[in-house]
């Protein structure tokens, strides 16, 4: 039976940076040998950059010096991370040309079920980025949409956009390759996590503060799932 489908444009998550002429951007796809939720969790807890992506976008300051704030609404979680007056990671030195310390931000916007838009960048320390003046540094958007393929495999669509040197394809390629390198490292971690979960299903979980965004996102998903089940099977829900 063919079912009708109503599209509400306002409910489509905005990814305009990918084809906005004020931004340079490139998109890609990864096949992941893990449950889709592990990819979502990973993007909501960016402390992992300090441990997995040291050669590109990570450094110790991300785990040790970040000020983190999580805000939530019924259909959204935002994790805001500021790392003030710290060394930039290797990728930021390469593409941003920073000589000294920077104020770096990572603002992760989660829209269920699996859209994650990361507003990331850095400015030289003292130029006013935390107060909203970002003109002296680099602004980027890392955009992600994850789709389950099976219980243990996923389609991972992603793109990287930047607001500087936007017409220079070499710059777009340089940034893209840095992020792609990091994402391949993530894919290895996802596979390893899935292998562990296969060995020990439903392992005891120890949450730490860095999991606050993950916890809130999982609550939204659990509530959506419950609502969907009660709509599909109203008798069982009573």
């Amino acid at each position: 039976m063919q079912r009708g489908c109503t599209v509400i444009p306002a409910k489509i998550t905005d990814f305009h940076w990918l084809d906005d002429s004020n931004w340079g951007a490139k998109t890609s796809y990864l096949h992941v040998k893990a449950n889709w939720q592990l990819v979502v969790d990973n993007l909501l807890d960016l402390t992992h950059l300090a441990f997995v992506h040291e050669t590109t976008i990570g450094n110790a300051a991300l785990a040790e010096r970040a000020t983190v704030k999580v805000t939530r609404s019924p259909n959204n979680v935002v994790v805001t991370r500021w790392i003030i007056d710290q060394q930039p990671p290797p990728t930021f030195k390469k593409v941003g040309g920073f000589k000294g310390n920077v104020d770096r931000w990572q603002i992760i916007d989660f829209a269920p079920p699996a859209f994650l838009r990361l507003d990331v960048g850095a400015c030289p320390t003292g130029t006013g980025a935390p107060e909203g003046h970002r003109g002296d540094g680099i602004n980027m958007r890392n955009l992600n949409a994850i789709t389950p393929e099976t219980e243990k495999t996923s389609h991972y669509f992603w793109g990287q956009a930047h607001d500087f040197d936007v017409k220079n394809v070499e710059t777009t390629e340089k940034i893209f390759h840095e992020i792609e390198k990091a994402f391949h490292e993530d894919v290895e971690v996802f596979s390893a996590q899935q292998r562990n979960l296969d060995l020990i299903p439903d392992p005891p979980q120890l949450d730490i503060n860095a999991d606050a965004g993950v916890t809130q996102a999982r609550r939204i998903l659990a509530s959506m799932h419950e609502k969907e089940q009660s709509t599909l099977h109203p008798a069982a829900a009573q």
Partner: protein
Amino acid sequence: MAEGDQWIRIVSLSQLREDEAFPAKIGDTPIALYKLNGQVYAIDDICTHEYAQLSQGFVEGATIECPLHQATFDIATGKCLSAPATIDLNRYAVRVDGNDVFVNAVPLKE
């Protein structure tokens, strides 16, 4: 020892925002300050259920919700209001002198 001997200046009043936590320390003890309707309160900052910093949680009215497992506590009294936590938080006397906020290092006894 008189209670007044143990007052510690924590922060300027102007740095506190309504409905937002301000994490601080008394010695090695993490505490959090809150400003609700102009009144400043100080309670322990670590959830009594599992190790989590409550100041990174959610202020909902007069309560703070743990960012990890949703235990809630009364900001004014430190009383535990919901599971999975079952133990109250310590609360501390607060004194505001001009723009300076002082907290007494000795938890208040019920």
